[in-house]
């Protein structure tokens, strides 16, 4: 029995064909993954199922019956719930208020019946092991718990089919584990679950079936047990994807960066405690850890954004402790920040303008009289956009209109173009597609071959494992352990990340 059958769904937005005669069959009581790169049309087709968009052609069948779904309300009435990538929650309100919104139980005099609603939410939460307090304010909940509130919202509306758009993008590794347990429990209670994702390991771990999409078309649908990361990646990208990166043998040279006893307190909370390490030329040093364990502060100290309380930073034998961000950049230390939208570029600036940020004040981009040299700026952008495969390669386009992967490539292009001797790169592949990930990873390895020292901070263990020569694990502002590439063990590092040594 199929919970959902999408037949020949076609949807066109202006000039792009977002969905081109797509068929998807979702079996009842299964977890069905829909994968594809950004822009493959996977979110669009699910938003058609949820009534956000109307298909130009095609049919929707739910539990064997043909249905017209004109708006989200129709979808909800037909037992479909959707958890969006950006949560549709109202932070200053309570869990209960958020869940009942639009479907409020009221007494005959129009008064909200919060107590009854709380009771029902508590029951649902217990039934699926969600552990949500209905009276808590949403803004006080962690992202992982907020996601569960979204799931509860759908369950409260009697959803039988639950669509989750990139559900693990915002979760820590531990939260992902708990989240998968919840999905399994939902499945065992009879719910049908669709997850939209581009993370292959997760597809293989959690799903029963998988549909692969590329450029608006379905390129395959198969039981997960017949799939492998290689098969899926090749289908997604449409060509052979090199999972094993070409990593040359590089003998580390002299010490580039040496930090001693770094300690810092932010808002009365100690964030870094006596952190010391060394990084050599041609070496990639990974910093693993659950986010919020001091990695941000470490990066900010090394890039001049945060002042140290105690400790010393040595760079090529020189004391650069507490130098300004500009002085540090002038020493050819490149920084690719974790949150590219907040710290990497200005979304309303053009690609050419973003391409010179931090170097805008000197030649060749600035003339001695203080005016910008636009011909040079555009020329620079043209070359870099081409070299780093930023699409579309237009210097005058606003950077905010690019996809995440292309935005990241733009930043990588800017930072790499100044020939760094030390690269500090945080979450380099967050939220970007496989093609771009592969490209950026290879760029990092190429720098290593050129004897650049790389400090790689990532919450993705797989990324750290495949790139780093050595890895430090951070936990609560301290170095909780060190492993070399040869002795890297996922299980062991995962334990260190949560404070078990």
């Amino acid at each position, binding site marked *: 029995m199929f919970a959902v059958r999408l037949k020949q769904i076609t949807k066109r937005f202006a000039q792009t064909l977002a969905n081109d005669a797509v068929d998807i069959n979702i079996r009842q009581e299964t977890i069905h993954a829909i994968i594809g790169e950004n822009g493959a049309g996977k979110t669009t087709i699910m938003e058609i199922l949820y009534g*956000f968009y109307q298909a130009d052609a095609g049919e929707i069948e739910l539990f064997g019956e043909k249905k017209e779904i004109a708006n*989200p*309300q129709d979808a*909800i009435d037909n037992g479909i719930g959707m958890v*969006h990538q950006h*949560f*549709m*929650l*109202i*932070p*200053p*309100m309570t869990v209960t*208020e*958020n869940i*009942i*919104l*639009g*479907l*409020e139980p*009221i007494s005959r005099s*129009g*008064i*909200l019946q919060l107590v009854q609603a709380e009771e029902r939410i508590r029951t649902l939460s217990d039934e699926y092991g969600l552990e949500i307090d209905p009276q808590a304010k949403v803004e006080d909940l962690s992202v992982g718990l907020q996601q569960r509130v979204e799931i509860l919202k759908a369950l409260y509306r009697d959803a039988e089919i639950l669509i989750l758009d990139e559900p693990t993008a915002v979760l820590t590794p531990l939260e992902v584990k708990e989240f998968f347990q919840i999905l399994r429990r939902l499945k065992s209670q009879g719910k049908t679950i669709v997850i939209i994702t581009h993370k292959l390991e997760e597809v293989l771990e959690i799903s029963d079936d998988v549909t692969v999409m590329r450029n608006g078309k379905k390129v395959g649908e198969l039981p997960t047990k017949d799939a492998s990361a290689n098969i899926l990646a090749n289908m997604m990208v449409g060509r052979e994807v090199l999972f094993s990166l070409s990593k040359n043998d590089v003998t580390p040279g002299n010490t580039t960066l040496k930090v001693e006893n770094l300690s810092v307190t932010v808002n009365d909370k100690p964030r870094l405690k006596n952190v010391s390490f060394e990084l050599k030329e041609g070496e990639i040093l990974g910093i693993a850890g659950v986010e919020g364990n001091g990695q941000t502060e470490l990066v900010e100290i090394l890039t001049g954004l945060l002042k140290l309380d105690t400790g010393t930073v040595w760079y090529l034998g020189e004391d650069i402790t507490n130098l300004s961000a500009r002085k540090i950049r002038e020493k050819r230390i490149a920084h690719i920040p974790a949150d590219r939208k907040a710290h990497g570029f200005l979304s309303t600036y053009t690609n050419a303008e973003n391409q010179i940020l931090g170097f805008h004040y000197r030649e060749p981009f600035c003339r001695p009289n203080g005016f910008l040299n636009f011909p040079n700026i555009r020329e620079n952008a043209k070359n870099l956009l081409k070299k780093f495969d930023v699409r579309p390669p237009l210097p005058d386009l606003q950077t905010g209109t690019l996809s995440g992967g292309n935005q990241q490539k733009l930043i990588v292009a800017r930072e790499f173009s100044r020939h760094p001797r030390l690269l500090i790169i945080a979450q380099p592949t967050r939220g970007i597609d496989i093609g771009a990930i592969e490209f950026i990873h290879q760029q990092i390895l190429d720098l290593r071959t050129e004897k650049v020292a790389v400090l790689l901070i990532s919450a993705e263990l797989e990324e750290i494992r495949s790139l780093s020569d050595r890895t430090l694990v951070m936990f609560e502002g301290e170095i909780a352990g060190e492993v070399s590439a040869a002795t890297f063990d996922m299980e062991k590092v995962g334990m260190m990340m949560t404070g078990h040594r």
Partner: protein
Amino acid sequence: MWEILDLELIASGLRLSTPLILAALGGMFSERAGVVNIALDGIMIFGAFTGAVVAYETANPWYGLLAAMALGGLVAHIHGIASIRYQADQVVSGTAINLLAIGVPAVLSNALYNSTTVTPNIQLMLPIIHIPIISSIPILGTLLGKYSILVFFAFAMVPLSWFVIQKTSFGLRLRAVGENPEAAETAGINVYLMRYYAVWISGLLAGLGGAFLSIAHGSSYVNNISAGRGFIALAALIFGRYTPKLTLVGCMIFGIADAFQIRVQGVIPIPVQFIQMFPYVLTMIVLAGLMGRAHVPAADGIPYAQAK
């Protein structure tokens, strides 16, 4: 000079708080739903003018009251069309209404009564309520004894507004569209309609606040009758962190300050212009001390593009 600090000062302060309370509560509905309403002052002026004219022409203050509310609602609706449907900048739209309120009543008043500054005195003012037993008790009598019916109404609106906003589904939806309209829309709520409701309520209440000035506190419309009270009401609302109870406190502080400056005129040897500045300076000090601490509704002032 200390003899002016008596119970009569408090009583007079409560009276002067009344238009502020009505306008501020109106503003609260609007802003909690995400529409900045700096047109409150202009709406009050329109309300005061309409109230005075209709009360005079019909010789019935109640008709004046209803007309003031109706026109307040209508002017607010214009603000609503501009800022909700056409997603205009809400501050610009509100400013336009405030500017209109400077000119339109003067022109109409000139056409009707040959005077750009005042309308004729109304024959009957709104009734004063004497609470029978309390008005004969010495202290309470002075404090609570006799007020216009609108004063009681305004104070009663405070808990009522709280109840509507916190305890009804209407209030929950109103808050939702002011915090995260996208989430509200996903939950099946008509964001535009909710915002129109909120703006209408703000117009009704601000119009009523204006009518208080011309047919309850005074007995005719005079030029610039609001004297910036709509803006003081907004200040009280921000001081009150967009909650009814604290907003009431803010309105009362300003109302009593206003009563104080009126009574102190001529009593202490300071030029009257400086004394008149007192409530306004107080507003600035209070706001400077509070700015940035209140939780402003997250979508306040941000136009929303609804799907349909």
